[in-house]
């Protein structure tokens, strides 16, 4: 996957050269190991800044709305699904975006890799599925497949679902007998243990809102936690307020979340933010047969009504 960067750069350079797009949004090399930074390239001269590898864990669909003129984006499978959602929800028009699709073999779990070392990682290199990671005291060679982010290991949409051009050959999609083993694990807990699981999840939250701001479907001009007249949620460290933020945000994402993992990637405290949304993804699949971002013609289940909608809860 890291080998398709030449193709990405060539495609991007061509688009900019012909003036077909105002900018290409992709990733730039980070200033520290295992990091990349979203970037907007405006001219062919800057093309070498673009990179693409297994540390490109953010969702670029977060950066494409409200741009003037046409924008090209380098989109993985999940990114492309979020672009579909953007189009369905009128955040961007199809002809305003040019999608360079990149079939993806997964992003690495940076926390998991870092925990293998007792000091800071100083170098990270990848060649195919082989990761060579070094700190000052040791070097380790790892198999990328053992260090995928959880959402990537459970991904069934690695190929872009909507694109104008592909930067690499399509990859084989995973077929999972059980796509929600993480949800099952939590559902198997008794209520007290389940409550404790979620209390533990939020105990380190510092209300930075990196999860919300990195999420492409969180685009409300004024988020419910920021409303002042009236104020719905406290902004401090009161446990109920912190929990309310996470649970309510998850519900706002229900039926729209593509499990891209940008929220977990962004969180500075290493909180597995996806634990809030995964059950809702499972429910939407089971109750409505719905996965977000696969159909340009349909609205997500929570804003569409069908007489076939389950209604056994109406007593």
């Amino acid at each position, binding site marked *: 996957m890291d080998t398709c960067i030449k193709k990405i750069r060539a495609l991007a350079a061509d688009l900019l050269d012909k003036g077909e797009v105002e900018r290409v949004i992709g990733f730039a090399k980070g200033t520290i190991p295992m990091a990349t930074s979203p970037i907007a390239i405006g001219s062919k001269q800057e093309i070498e800044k673009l990179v693409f590898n297994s540390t490109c864990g953010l969702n670029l669909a977060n950066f494409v709305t409200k741009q003037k003129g046409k924008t090209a984006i380098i989109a993985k499978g999940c990114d492309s699904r979020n672009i579909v959602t953007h189009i369905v929800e009128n955040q961007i028009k199809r002809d305003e975006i040019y999608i360079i699709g990149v079939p993806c073999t997964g992003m690495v779990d940076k926390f998991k890799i870092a925990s293998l070392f007792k000091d800071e990682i100083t170098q990270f290199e990848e060649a195919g599925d082989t990761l060579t990671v070094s700190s000052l005291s040791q070097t380790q060679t790892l198999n990328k497949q053992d260090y995928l982010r959880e959402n990537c290991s459970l991904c069934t949409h690695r190929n872009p679902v909507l694109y104008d051009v592909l930067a690499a050959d399509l990859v084989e999609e995973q077929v999972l007998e059980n796509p929600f083993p993480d949800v099952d694990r939590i559902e198997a807990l008794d209520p007290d243990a389940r409550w404790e699981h979620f209390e533990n999840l939020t105990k380190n939250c510092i209300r930075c809102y990196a999860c919300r701001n990195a999420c492409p479907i969180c685009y409300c001009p004024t988020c419910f936690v920021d409303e*002042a*007249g*009236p104020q719905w949620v406290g902004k401090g460290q009161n446990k109920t307020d912190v929990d309310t933020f996470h649970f309510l945000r998850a519900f706002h994402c229900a039926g729209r979340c593509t499990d891209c993992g940008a929220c977990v990637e962004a969180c500075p405290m290493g909180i597995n933010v996806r634990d809030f949304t995964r059950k809702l993804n499972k429910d939407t699949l089971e109750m409505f047969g719905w996965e977000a971002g696969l159909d340009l013609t349909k609205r997500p289940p929570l804003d569409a009504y069908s007489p076939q909608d389950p209604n056994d809860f109406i007593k």
Partner: protein
Amino acid sequence: MENPYMPYPVRIDDIQIATEDKSLKTFKFVFLNEGDEEKFAYHAGQFAELSIPGVGEIPIGIASSPVEKGFVKFTVFRAGVVTSHLHNMKVGDIMGIRGPLGNWYPWDKLENKNVVIIGGGFAFTTLRSSIVYMLDPANRSKFKNIDVVYGSRSPGMLLYREELFEWEKRDDINMHITVDGTDDPDWKYHTGFVPQVVEQNAPKADEDTYAIICGPPIMIKFTQPSLTQLGYKPHQIIMSLENRMKCGIGMCGRCNIGKELVCKDGPVFTLEQINQTPKEY
């Protein structure tokens, strides 16, 4: 040092509706504890945080004048959560005032000078404080000519109407009251926007004349060229800025314009100082 977050407890002594659309009210407060009024000694141009327990605080310019004893007055526009709550309060209710905060109009620099006061809309509060201060018999002789240009959308939107008309009758102050427009055939004063009235009526600048200007950003934007045309240099134009504030004591970091904190280094700045700051206000 005392806790600067602690307000002085006050009681609402009087509430007057200040404008015909009821969007502004003038509140008169009396300090509950003897001695607090002295501690609150202020200068014209300063502001205070009006504090309502359980609701919040708002930074409001002090409309009463240091020469008026026994109470303090504020004119408040209903804009958000706290101001709406305040507008619904009654005489006798208890709340708090924190201050006085900020710097003030440079009264020592203005001695023996001509002063031109320009105000628009409901930004006239600290200007009222200034005019009452200057007209007080103990102070009047310290200043030379006083000109005032004050305008609002319509006669019913002028603040302190009765006082304005009283001042107009005096011969130790030149009032140029104006409204954007009116149907009232008995309207005796100017009709027209503040910048035009300034151009036509304000005295030309000389090294002994200073202008104090207070108003909404758009009024200031169009009045500045008029003053410049009359010859006022940036150090002779004194402005009072607003910004979103919380602590009012220069600690929460919210109200900065460049390295100036509007609550502590301001709110009064000369145009010369403002020209050296980023335009983020």
